[in-house]
């Protein structure tokens, strides 16, 4: 079966309905395995058990950036091929990415309280994560404001591509800004090398979160396709009613 067949929304829906239960089951299994490994992983000799927040924090940080990548690819599909499925993929990815970024920020701030003594520091990494969150919220706001789904998704696609170009620049400038104002002595970033006893659970958790992302993304795409169908059916119904009355 050629890949292009996947791009048909109806065929996509039928494949999704077959794949999704398996994907969800795999996500649950990998999470169970990963969490078991996390619970048995050794505590940090300085931070104690709080280091376990890392197993949530770091994978969500990775995924929040990967999700923008997915959105930019979908944006290319929207702008170049005007493909409705790419529209749907981009729209479905935005709230998930925002949620991952939000979880990353929340866990980071909860982690910061015991280790740095404050919930929030204007550190370069934290700040660029916050800016990423704001960009996600901007994309969501654009979807939310546009009354016509098609036009909204094209605008959001352009914004996603602009963001993809801009995010590295923002990250660079935020780092410049931070080192300009204060030396890096406020806190040191991570340990020098991560021990395998911590690294392997971390990678498993990252895999589990990636599976979770795809499960949520496919489910959200399915919902969005169905939502659009409901919308066009309602419009058709309203038109027929108007015709019958006149």
């Amino acid at each position, binding site marked *: 079966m050629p890949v292009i067949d996947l791009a048909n929304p109806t065929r996509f829906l039928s494949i999704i309905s077959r794949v999704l239960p398996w994907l969800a089951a795999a996500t649950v299994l990998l999470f169970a395995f990963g969490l078991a490994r996390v619970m048995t992983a050794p505590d940090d000799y300085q931070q104690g058990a709080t280091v376990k927040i890392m197993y949530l924090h770091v994978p969500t940080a990775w995924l929040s950036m990967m999700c923008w990548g997915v959105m930019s690819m979908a944006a290319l599909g929207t702008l170049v091929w005007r493909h409705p499925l790419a529209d749907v993929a981009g729209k479905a990815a935005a709230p998930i990415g925002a949620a991952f970024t939000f979880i990353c920020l929340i866990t980071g701030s909860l982690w910061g309280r015991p280790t740095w003594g404050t919930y929030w*520091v204007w550190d370069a990494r934290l700040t660029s994560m916050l800016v990423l969150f*704001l960009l996600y919220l901007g994309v969501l706001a654009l979807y939310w404001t546009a009354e016509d789904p098609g036009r909204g998704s094209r605008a959001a696609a352009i914004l996603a591509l602009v963001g993809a170009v801009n995010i590295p620049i923002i990250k660079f400038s935020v780092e410049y800004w931070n080192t300009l104002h204060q030396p890096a002595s406020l806190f040191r970033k991570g340990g020098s090398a991560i021990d395998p006893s911590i690294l392997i659970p971390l990678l498993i958790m990252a895999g589990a979160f990636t599976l979770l992302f795809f499960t949520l993304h496919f489910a959200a795409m399915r919902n969005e396709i169905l939502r659009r169908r409901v919308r066009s059916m309602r419009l058709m119904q309203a038109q027929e009613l108007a015709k019958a009355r006149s």
Partner: protein
Amino acid sequence: MNAFTSLLVRDMRISVRVGGGALMGALFFLIVVTMMPFAIGPDLALLARIGPAILWLGALLASLLALDRLFATDHDDGSLDLLMMGGLPLELAVAAKAIAHWLTTGLPLVVITPVLGLMLNVELGAMGWVSLTLLAGTPALTFIGLIGAALSVALRRGGLLLAVLVLPLTIPVLIFGVAAANAAIVGPAPFAPPFTILCALSLASFVLGPIAAAATLRHGLE
């Protein structure tokens, strides 16, 4: 009073639906507060000292930007004319619209203030008091801004004109709001005097704002 509440509910419903942009003000508030440290620097001690001022300025700008929509969309689709011809006194109609506007744009600002205060290193114990000053003060911003919104829709000019008209009028609110917030955080001045003046400003503008805005609309749109 039935027309009053139904107008209020209608306005709130419009603003939370697609294209309404009820939470846009809160989002703008978040972004303004995020931009401040980029200009000032990430020094937490400094941010803690000027935190209340940043929060108040951010809330002021956010509520100002949302004002543009208060009458403009109703004017565009003609429902403002219907309101002016309807049985409900225009003052009450304007007040209902203003209350709905505050509930959908002002109240979210108050709700997210503790989170933003956390980012600005405002003391945790004082956060409730700072939010309380915003709760008491943002209605004044909306009701004073109401007059500017009515003027700009009567003159068919929005945007910057509205800001130029409204910002000078909000200076007292800013002064007493920041004074009360600072009193709550650092002292030594007592919290009650500036806070009660802030409440008085809100209550007075609640009475005067709708009357002035209704008069403006009557003169401007006839």
